[in-house]
């Protein structure tokens, strides 16, 4: 097949998943020290070592810690000797997983380690994230991601597709569900009515509708065919995977819909069967409404039982964690078929959709 998204040709499974504790600020460990226990756990879960994978792919951005080539030094956490094929994407780890999945589909490799690390705390995220915008017309204005998300939320309300009460309900549910996720950062049971008493951060978004600032890391081992069955008692198969993006000009988009998610969902085959669980990477509460609709999911689907990004949003890792959590919901028996979504960029700029199934 060509190096594009789509339905699986060669069976590939999420053989193992691990994530760090998600915290507001990890000021004890450097990136290597953050990653090492996660990498050790993702291999240890299935009794393999770094020598058992043919390819390593990571997702991170040096802008978060202000350290040039931090993505290269992070490899020290794995120990790449003897040398092996390795790659990196300046994207969430979900896109690193996509790159590994394409190589697995092409039959070039049989197993891959995918990892992501996001230390969101060292700098001013509002300033850092505004630098990902178009450098001529938008970035010089330094529009912060919360204000851009608020514009999107306002457009959603104006279009009659959501309300402030809906946003509060999503935040309340997410953080209540997070109480059963020991890795979550924000887990508490506060009713929507109480949340609606908060002041606006940027109207119409109140604090509860914003993601927490999170330091965290995650890793997944992908394995093809027999190897997946050999390593894991309950491999979770990726049956479809695709990613698409919107135009980079925010003013040219309808911010209340996500055609790129819809297209990725079509290519990945979301509608080919019933969906039990969806892990949606919607950092701002209102974005869950947009993505859920774009994925074509109805109210029978359990959304973000892990608590989702409103409970922990380690940048560059939170999308990969959605795939890991969706796989975990299948291996735990909670779901037979699950969908994971990852996003990157302002106002759901880039979107990735992954369909997972058990044996």
């Amino acid at each position, binding site marked *: 097949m060509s190096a594009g998204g789509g339905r699986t040709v060669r069976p590939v499974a999420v053989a193992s998943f691990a994530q760090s504790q998600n915290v507001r600020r990890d000021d*004890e460990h*450097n990136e*290597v*020290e953050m990653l*090492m226990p996660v*990498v050790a756990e993702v291999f240890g879960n299935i009794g393999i070592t770094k020598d058992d994978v043919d390819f390593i792919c990571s997702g991170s951005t040096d802008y978060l810690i202000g350290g040039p080539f931090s993505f290269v030094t992070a490899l020290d*956490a794995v120990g790449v000797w003897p040398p092996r094929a390795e790659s990196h994407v300046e994207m969430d780890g979900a896109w690193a997983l996509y790159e590994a999945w394409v190589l697995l589909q092409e039959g070039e490799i049989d197993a891959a380690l995918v990892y992501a690390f996001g230390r969101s705390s060292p*700098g001013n995220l509002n300033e*850092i994230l505004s630098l990902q915008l178009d450098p001529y017309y938008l970035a010089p204005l330094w529009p912060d991601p919360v204000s851009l998300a608020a514009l999107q939320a306002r457009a959603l309300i104006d279009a009659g597709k959501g309300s402030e009460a809906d946003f509060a309900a999503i935040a309340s549910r997410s953080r209540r569900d997070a109480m059963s996720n020991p890795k979550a950062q924000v887990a508490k049971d506060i009713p929507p009515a109480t949340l609606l008493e908060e002041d606006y951060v940027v109207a119409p978004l109140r604090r509860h509708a914003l993601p927490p600032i999170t330091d965290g890391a995650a890793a997944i081992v992908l394995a093809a065919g027999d190897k997946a069955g050999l390593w894991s008692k309950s491999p979770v198969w990726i049956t479809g995977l695709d990613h698409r993006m919107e135009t980079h000009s925010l003013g040219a988009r309808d911010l209340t819909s996500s055609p790129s998610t819809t297209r990725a969902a079509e290519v990945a085959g979301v509608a080919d069967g019933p969906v039990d669980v969806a892990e949606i990477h919607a950092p701002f509460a209102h974005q869950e409404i947009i993505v859920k609709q774009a994925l074509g999911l109805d109210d029978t689907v359990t959304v973000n039982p892990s608590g989702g990004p409103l409970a922990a949003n380690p940048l560059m890792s939170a999308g990969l964690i959605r795939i890991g959590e969706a796989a975990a919901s299948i291996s735990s028996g909670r779901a037979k078929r699950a969908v994971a979504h990852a996003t990157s960029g302002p106002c759901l700029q880039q979107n990735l959709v992954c369909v997972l199934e058990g044996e």
Partner: protein
Amino acid sequence: MTDETVTEPLGPVTTLATPIRLDFEFTPGVAQSRFLRGLEQGKFMGQRCPKCGKVYVPSRGSCPTDGVPTTEDVELANVGTVTTYCVVNVPFAGQSIEIPYICAQVLLDGANLSFMGLIQEIPTDEIRMGMRVEAVWVEREELKPSLASVRYFRPSGEPDADYETFKEYL
């Protein structure tokens, strides 16, 4: 506005300057903190890999070859060997040292990783691979958890190291 206002067309915009500055809080981590605390006490602290036995200075907490945590702290010597060097003759913005000066990779005795140091107290044409050097520290009360605690390296007066002893580190 007055009648003197310039009305000539200014022509097309050809460049746009958008100054950007970001500030970060650096987290050295457990291993690198040991190195920095060592500098504060006037000594070089490294860490040994439990698997291959190599000593890294500074250590970032893992062996980059084996991918395992480096947990054993090792105090290194104040002397080492110049593995390679560069004589800087070109001025550049932000330069704090008078040119010409020598920038060298110094392999401390007991370490398996060299790091960059300034070499002083020697004419630039006398620097050579294998030269033995020692660290010159700032005054005791000026020591900080920073490489600025090491003023520079200077010849230790020992005979040059045999090429065989450092060829692996070039």
